[in-house]
């Protein structure tokens, strides 16, 4: 709250970055992965982050997810500055406010589909009875009602991404962060997933930030495209 100024847009903003930077030392050099980016994302918006690999889009996403800390600047989510949170507070933020989807799905191979979706609720200390219900609910939302006791390796890529989406929804986040969610899928399946993400965003009023390098897909599903290059914001386009 401390960083927020009483502007009229404040209430409708989900994410705001102020001149955020993330530098890594690498073999004596300093890599400027994110180099002074300021942007705002409105509540319920579907935004795509585009750019070449190494442009800093994934790093920016990780900063928004609270998985990484900025070298300078701030990342405000609903007015709270992630840079000033303790690691325990960041964990709580990731647990309750953020859902994440990855290119490689990152499901836990030894756990069944149900267990994978249940896992974030274990960290959030949701009661057992409620968990079972929420697992079912999340899986229904992504269109998976069967093979719930199978392991991820027994599912197709598209199905795995649906499971990981269901896992991201389990704790009912206000922000969904997707890092190349279609990167490992064929184009048909990729489109299905993005359709699903858009529908969920609309029905749940959830803000979505997606990293991708496929401009065509981004144009079809996102409301706004943000182009990054060399860690800097290059341009923005609102899709009509």
């Amino acid at each position, binding site marked *: 709250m401390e960083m927020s100024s009483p502007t009229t847009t404040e209430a409708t903003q989900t994410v705001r970055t102020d001149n955020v930077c993330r530098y890594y030392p690498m073999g004596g050099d300093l890599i400027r992965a994110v180099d002074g980016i300021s942007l705002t994302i409105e509540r319920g918006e579907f935004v795509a982050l585009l750019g070449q690999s190494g442009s800093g889009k994934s790093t920016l996403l990780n900063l928004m997810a609270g998985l*990484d800390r900025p070298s300078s600047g701030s990342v405000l989510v609903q007015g709270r500055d992630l840079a000033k949170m303790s*690691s325990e507070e960041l964990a709580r933020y990731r647990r309750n406010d953020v859902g994440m989807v990855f290119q490689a799905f990152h499901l836990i191979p030894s756990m069944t589909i149900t267990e994978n979706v249940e896992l974030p609720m274990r960290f959030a200390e949701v009661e057992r009875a409620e968990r079972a219900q929420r697992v079912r609910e999340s899986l229904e939302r992504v269109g998976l009602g069967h093979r719930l006791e199978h392991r991820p390796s027994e599912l197709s890529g598209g199905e795995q991404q649906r499971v990981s989406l269901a896992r991201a929804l389990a704790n009912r986040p206000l922000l969904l962060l997707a890092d190349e969610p279609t990167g490992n899928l064929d184009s048909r399946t990729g489109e299905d997933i993005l359709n699903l993400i858009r529908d969920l965003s609309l029905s749940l009023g959830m803000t979505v930030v997606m990293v991708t390098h496929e401009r065509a897909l981004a144009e079809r599903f996102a409301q706004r495209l943000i182009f990054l290059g060399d860690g800097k914001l290059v341009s923005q386009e609102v899709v009509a």
Partner: protein
Amino acid sequence: MKGYDLFELAVRNLRQSKLRNGLTTVGISVGVASLVAMLSLGVGLQQLATRRLAGSGMFDTVFVTSKQDFRGFDREDDQKTEHPEKAPVLDQPARDNMAHLQYVTEVEPEVRVMGEVVYNGQTHFGFVTGLPMSARENEAFDNLQGKFFSGSAADELILLNEFAKELDPSDPKQLIGQEVTLRYGERQALPAESTDRPLLSGAQSNADSTSGDDFGFSVVRKTQALKVVGIIQEEPYGGMRTVSRGRIFLPVDLTEKLNMAQFTDMRSSLRGAGGKTYMTLTVRVKDPGKVAEVQDAINKMGFRTFSVLDATKSLRRFFTVLDLFLGIFGSLALAVATLAIINTLVMAVLERRREIGVMKAIGASDSDVKKLFFAEASAMGFFGGLLGIALGFAIGKAINWGTGIYLHRHQLPAEAVWILPTWLIGAAIAFSIVVSLLAGLYPASRAARLDPVQTLKYE
């Protein structure tokens, strides 16, 4: 994260690599087993030694005499006693007071008189001594043939085997249950003569009372029919006490009831203290460790005391050192097991880098990750501890079995040299969990420190 979730996740993670975690758990159990086996051996040996010492009946006893008597035996003691003539005498009230002291179980006089046993028309001479009921626990009665006295004043006697053989050389055993006649000297008090003048120096003011005064006594021959109830092979109390040196044993209260005349009664008569006094009282203490305390209390009452130096104390010191060494040897295996836990968990951290990153990304805090690894470590510790106790128990049984065979070959009764006390079971499990947690310290903090961004990079 809630406790049961932590437990569930830990168990499922352990089951992921059954062989590796199983082997580590077995490693812990071997460590715990060696520790348990060693410490129980220490406990068993200590109990064996104290049991033997307590059985000798020497270390839980305080011998009490009056400072009026036996003067000149101990110069130092004499010098310390300023007015020995004013010192209290060992009479019935003093005996009752001692019986009421804390930790005291028995106060009995030492009775040893001459007697004759008439059997089959033959008389046989022997010393008769009085034994308290507690003598049953003495090791001389471990191999008692027949029974012990049925009561502290029962008309019964127990014979030393060599005396029984004298009575019936062909089959001494058949004496058990037979009735014999004991001939003894009864002490009959005499009334004071008119020439007897009140004692001038006597501290006791009641010395001048006439009736009941122990002015003098006659020794009169008496007979008493007694039943032989048992035969023992060796002298009680290892032959170390006055009452050990006899061949005919009676319940001590019976000897008092029969008013058997003792040599020492002359002292009582000279004193003219106005009633029967004892030369020596034997005070039995509940626990050898409390002897000093009781002795102190009796000294404060104004009596001279004597006890065999509490050997159990130095014994305890010896066993503490022995336990320490056994513990160190036992711990070596556990130390190796600790390294195995560290190794297993470090491997698990490396293997599950990605998984830990995912967990963090979906909301696990550093402390959740740390707790998860601790839970895995303590689960291995717990199961290793359980298994280790079972294994240690088996080893101990084997030790007992082996020593049993060895002792049997040497015609000795079996002894439990290995005893697993209940506290050790709990302590071993707790200890193996603590050790596992310590071993988990490094791997857990390493897991908690993992950077999720690094682990989740698409490779």
